[in-house]
């Protein structure tokens, strides 16, 4: 009987304890959501900036646009720094869904800037550095490898657009360079065993990007445009 009364206490107490935990959890999520909204805002700004490379006039301005983007990434780093303060670092995957989307977008933007700058594939380390985060989970807030890969795949589809638009802008050699680059990427992705998840779906899209770029290269080459020195490209 006494035991019963004691346990009655403990049930209520137990639920209060759990409720405390749940409240704290909601607060953390609320905080994260706010920072993530800011990150999304910055990401949209960087994207708008980089979109201009698709404009005929935009090709010459690539270096300056990249420089400006690099500046905006410092805002990203500040916001990332703030995000890290919102939750215990070892619980990264508990809240992963909140920032997964924006992190993939930012990885894409970093990869895109690096590509525009020197036409190489960004490394995971570089992206992490540009975003002010870690590569290795043990070291802190990090860039999950699947998010890095998703970012790279978004870039691939942006590059197929770029191949199309660079021809419109009169730069006939860029498509071939993009083609080589994207083929190497494709070879890389073929090494991976993906699950039936969003990344797999995105990777299926890569095949279409490769195909589209191949078509552009073909169009350019049957017209003999690739060989003549072009004026629109900058490399």
């Amino acid at each position: 009987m006494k035991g019963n009364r004691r346990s009655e206490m403990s049930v209520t107490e137990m639920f209060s304890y759990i409720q405390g935990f749940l409240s704290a959890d909601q607060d953390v999520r609320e905080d994260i959501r706010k920072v993530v909204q800011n990150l999304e805002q910055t990401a949209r700004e960087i994207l708008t900036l980089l979109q201009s490379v698709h404009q005929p006039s935009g090709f010459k301005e690539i270096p300056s646009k990249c420089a400006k983007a690099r500046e905006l990434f410092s805002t990203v780093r500040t916001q990332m720094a703030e995000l890290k303060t919102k939750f215990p670092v070892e619980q990264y995957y508990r809240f992963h869904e909140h920032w997964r989307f924006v992190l993939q977008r930012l990885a894409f933007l970093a990869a895109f800037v690096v590509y525009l700058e020197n036409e190489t594939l960004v490394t995971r380390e570089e992206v992490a550095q540009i975003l002010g985060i870690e590569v290795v989970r043990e070291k802190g807030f990090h860039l999950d490898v699947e998010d890095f890969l998703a970012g790279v795949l978004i870039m691939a589809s942006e590059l197929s657009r770029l191949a199309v638009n660079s021809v419109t802008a009169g730069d006939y050699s860029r498509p071939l360079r993009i083609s080589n680059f994207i083929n190497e990427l494709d070879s890389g992705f073929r090494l991976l065993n993906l699950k039936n998840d969003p990344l797999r779906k995105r990777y299926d899209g890569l095949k279409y990007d490769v195909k589209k770029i191949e078509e552009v290269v073909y169009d350019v080459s049957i017209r003999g445009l690739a060989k003549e020195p072009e004026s629109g490209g900058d490399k």
Partner: protein
Amino acid sequence: AAQERDVHANPSSAVIAAFKVFQQELDSRHDKYERLVKISRDITIESKRAIFLLHRVINVPNAEGVLKEAEGKLDGVRQKIGQIAEELRGEDIYQFHRAFTPGIQEYVEAVSFLHYIRHRSLISLEEINARLVFMNTENSDPKGSAEAPPSGALVLTFQVTPADYLLGVADLTGELMRLCIGSVGNGDIDTPFQLSQFLRQIHDGFSYIGNTGPYEVSKKLHTLRQSLGKVEDACYTLRVRGSEIPKHMLADVFCSRTTHMDTEEGVV
């Protein structure tokens, strides 16, 4: 162009080298996930069997024997949880949480059911977690781990999350309802009233948490409410039925009930 491209499959390429690293990372992650799923399935099955075993407590003479046997089964389950802890050593447990959450919930259900039968109270999250401390080697004695964990790198712990705890307790209520109906059928008239009180407390606890908990809890709330209703109905029937006891039999009934209680208490 085709020839050019083949070069890119060149294994010396930096890109290819990087992707080989990714391949390994993804494969080992996926493999680990798969191993965890398998352990979780084992945990689920063994926990369910422990629960079935515990329901036998009602109508066997040797309740303590059954409890011991169930305790033994759960020791086995804890060893499996130890394997999970081993797999998760140094990992972020939330990364693989989906792989093992069903098993852990079932374990919470089983261990809290055993606890209720023994102590007529709700096991706490701390009490559950206190028994999930493991020696590093797989063959270590799990009994020892329930005591103060020896310091040093040899100790591994597993932390049940509050959400898994809640979900396990929500399922516990279904087993308690079965226990209650079974008790009535076996002529035990105290347990149902105790259980209805206890279930009402848990129900009120879940009402208090309401929709602030994880989504799956809200789904289980309906079942919980049904279980409570069944238990309340059972108590109601006992009460209505008891109202007809002829005066001269009252003492009789009261006596036998007390005896019954004593026996049970003695056993625990």
